[in-house]
């Protein structure tokens, strides 16, 4: 194998693929990235056996070939080379090493055979459709904070993506929950998505995908099969296994009859919660919301640290209510709202509360109170 590639191209491709590579693995080849050169392009592939990322970039290939080299090491080398450098990659026929030359720098990297590199065996995708990167990013942004990290209920360790309907309009809906709170966001159903079976996209895949569509530009081609999901973003293809389990019937926990509505300026609310929760030193300390007519008093009482209260004016006409929440959960949810006003739909101190964005009814959040 022999080729020349510009440093920027190489770096961009490596930064896309290497983040999927685990730094510590029990199978040595999994810490490698596979490079295969053919025609006028260089193909990168990295995997952790659950998902793989493939990227193809243009390169000046003089001799085709394929090999694998330590991914993070190669990435670090290229990162430290000067901008605009032309990098020559040559594999010695005898020496099983990849030589990397850039100006005065010269590296020789240990390789492993490309034939041994695992393949995710991506089969046919039953369903294929396109969705804009910004829409997809929004789905992820607003739900991923609620993904569970607890392994016993593994089916909660991802985002549940499925088709639904809202106000008679077909939608594509993403739901995530950790058992304490739930986030649900929808977008108009893309053409071709109708009939898609619900899928649970694992947490790590969600984060990888989010990184790849960070800029929110362009269109993502999605392919879904019963066991895998594929995202094509420009020159990058991310394929992942799905979580094999059934997502709970989340519809039952979304309150339908919460009739006490509180409207509050979201920015004021976030500021106030953030300030009063400074007093709460340890994890799980509750913020108490005392709501009376058009007035919300937030208070935290920490016998060791002291206490804090803050009052904000809200829109509220129902019967007075006192309810406690985990401060971090409140901030997580309020942080997702884009509109100026947050709408809290409350029932009583022991039942789930629903939070919505007053300017956007495609997203809703449900939060379980705390009792102190």
């Amino acid at each position, binding site marked *: 194998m022999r080729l020349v590639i510009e440093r920027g191209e190489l770096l961009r491709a490596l930064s896309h693929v290497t983040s999927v590579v685990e730094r510590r693995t029990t199978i040595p080849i999994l810490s490698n990235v596979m490079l295969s050169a053919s025609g006028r392009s260089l193909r990168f592939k990295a995997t952790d056996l659950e998902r793989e990322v493939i990227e193809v970039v243009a390169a000046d290939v003089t001799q085709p070939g394929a090999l694998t080299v330590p991914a993070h090491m190669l990435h670090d080398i290229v990162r430290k080379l000067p901008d605009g450098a032309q990098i020559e990659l040559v594999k010695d026929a005898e020496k099983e090493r990849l030589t990397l030359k850039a100006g005065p720098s010269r590296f020789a990297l240990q390789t492993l055979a490309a034939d041994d590199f695992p393949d995710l065996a991506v089969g046919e995708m039953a369903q294929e459709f396109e969705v804009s990167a910004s829409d997809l990013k929004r789905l992820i942004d607003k739900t991923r904070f609620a993904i*569970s*990290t*607890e*392994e*016993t*209920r593994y089916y909660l360790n991802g985002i549940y993506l499925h088709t639904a309907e809202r106000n008679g309009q077909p939608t594509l809906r993403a739901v995530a*929950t*950790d*058992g*304490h*709170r*739930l986030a649900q966001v929808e977008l108009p159903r893309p053409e071709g998505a109708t009939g898609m079976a619900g899928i649970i996209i694992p947490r790590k895949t969600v984060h990888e995908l989010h990184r790849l569509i960070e800029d929110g530009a362009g269109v993502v081609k999605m392919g879904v099969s019963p066991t895998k999901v594929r995202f094509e973003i420009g020159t990058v293809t991310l394929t992942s296994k799905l979580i094999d389990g059934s997502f*709970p019937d*989340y519809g039952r*926990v979304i309150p339908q009859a919460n009739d006490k509505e509180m409207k509050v300026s979201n920015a004021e609310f976030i500021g106030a919660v953030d300030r009063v929760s400074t007093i709460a030193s*340890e*994890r*799980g*300390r*509750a913020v108490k919301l005392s709501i009376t007519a058009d007035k919300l008093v937030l208070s935290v009482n920490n*016998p*060791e640290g002291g206490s804090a209260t803050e009052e904000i004016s809200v829109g509220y006409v129902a019967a007075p209510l006192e309810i*406690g929440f*985990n401060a971090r959960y409140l901030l997580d949810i309020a942080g997702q709202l884009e509109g100026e006003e947050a709408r809290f739909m409350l029932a009583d101190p*022991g039942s*789930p509360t629903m939070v919505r964005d007053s300017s956007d009814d495609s997203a809703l959040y*449900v*939060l*379980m*109170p*705390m*009792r*102190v």
Partner: protein
Amino acid sequence: MREAQPLTIRQLAPETVNRIAAGEVIERPASAVKELVENALDAGAREIEIVTVSGGLSLIRVTDDGCGMEARDLALCVERHATSKLRDDDLFDIRTLGFRGEALPSIGSIATLSVASRPRAGAAPLEVVVDRGEKHPLKPAALNFGTRIEVRDLFSATPARLKFLKSERAENMAVSDVVKRLAMAHPGVGFTLTTGERTGLRLPAAPDGPEGLLARLGRIMGADFLADALPIAGEREGVALSGFAGLPTLHRPDASQQYLFVNGRPVRDKLLVGSVRAAYGDLLPKGRYPLLALFVTLPPAAVDVNVHPAKAEVRFRDAAAVRSLIIGGLSQALAAAGHRATLRGGAMTIDAFVAAATPQREASPSPNLSSAPRSSPPQAAYSSRASGFGEAMQAPFAAFDSLSAETVRAEDLPTADSIARPLGAARAQLHETYIVAQTETSVIIVDQHAAHERLVYERMKAMLANGGVARQGLLIPVVVTLEPDEAACLIERACEWAALGLILESFGSTAVCVREVPALLGHGDVEGLVRDLASGVANDGDTRALQDRLEAVCSTFACHGSVRAGRRLTGVEMNALLRDMEATPHSGQCNHGRPTYVELKLTDIERLFGRS
């Protein structure tokens, strides 16, 4: 196979019946010793002598100075179900150790039994012999007041049993264990145990009262226990608890030194294990067991001792009350012990010093000696010392070095007042890790991190107990499938879990549904928690699983929130820490059960220099 003859049902011969009973009552020589010593105790003996030869198989002799037996009683005592101990045949009012009337006939049916007795009334001593079930007539004997029972050739009539016995040594141990247990329950009675040629145990009669009991316990459980024992006392609804428990820093790898006595009867009961674990809880490292001897006294009607042929188990009418009494009594004593830690740490330190001195004096030229593991602690001490003096690679400003605050500045110097306190006045901080304090009679070395960690932890626990546990509601309840009895046990105590922040509901007969969890646990594994809790409760009433987890979280917070080793402390800070330790319960050990300080007695230090 031969055609079976038609068999008719017939009454078994008395010898056979006795041998069957013997199989239950007399399992091994130690069981015979137990029965005979209990008889002696029931007879009001003040001095009991036990002799065994070859593990008790060839001879067991128990001699007492009790009330003795008249001729008529002597003839009857070896008959089955003959006893003087059960008044009006009332099994609900048992005030003696024995009552079944099985021991002597059982032994007599499988060995050669000789009972010689002389009652106080002044009658002539008589002897009755039973040879493997065959009773001989009474004959005169030579004896002082009391009773002497000899058992020869035990199990000679049931050779099968012989095959199942352990080594002579193991049988001797078992005999000794039985005698020890009975001796602990009766400190006022003198015991002498001779196994083979040597006297295994000589326990003089101790005076009545707690001092006598403690003296007796100390002779049996060791001098460490004597030094570290906390008196236990409590009473609730007619059930009285007394005894002694060791400090948490005194522990063993097994529960063999935990003794429970119910109405003076040594018993083994799961109840004790669970209660002790609940009371000592986070004071002990995992897999270590404290030493203790507890005496529960309750009306005979409130306990059923007729459960087990050898009476090793009992049944309480209200086990939960006894359990909470034990936990309460222990917790109270442990909290009252405050910062006290075992003195053994100090003794071990002194020993280490002595060991250090020896190789130096010998000045052995052999380099191999230094690699011997025995001398490695002193080696480490020297080398760290050496690096203190020999940091020549990077030369320090000598002038500044002498200023470095390893000694307490004059203004921090303690007043005579703090020297009089139990943990004394802080004198210096060494290696930025250890506080050296001086009391009137000793030198105290405190591990600052361990001590402060415990203080923070105790404070957090107190907050948890006072402020209640904040609960996070579950949006999606967790349903955990359990065995039906586990689920039932768990639901029965739902109130207890609620107090700790776990709200459970029954969900069919084989599952529970978790609605709310302690917020402190965050996104922990709820199912695992419930399973641990259920199996703990169902097996030995152990309810620690939930509390353990909460405390584990507290302990992590405490670890992060406390003064680390390597932090330089001022004299004021050090003294404040010492005062805090004196005021805080359980501050004698860190969260992992290690001592937080050691005390070197002045007398020990003087001994090091040969000044005693």
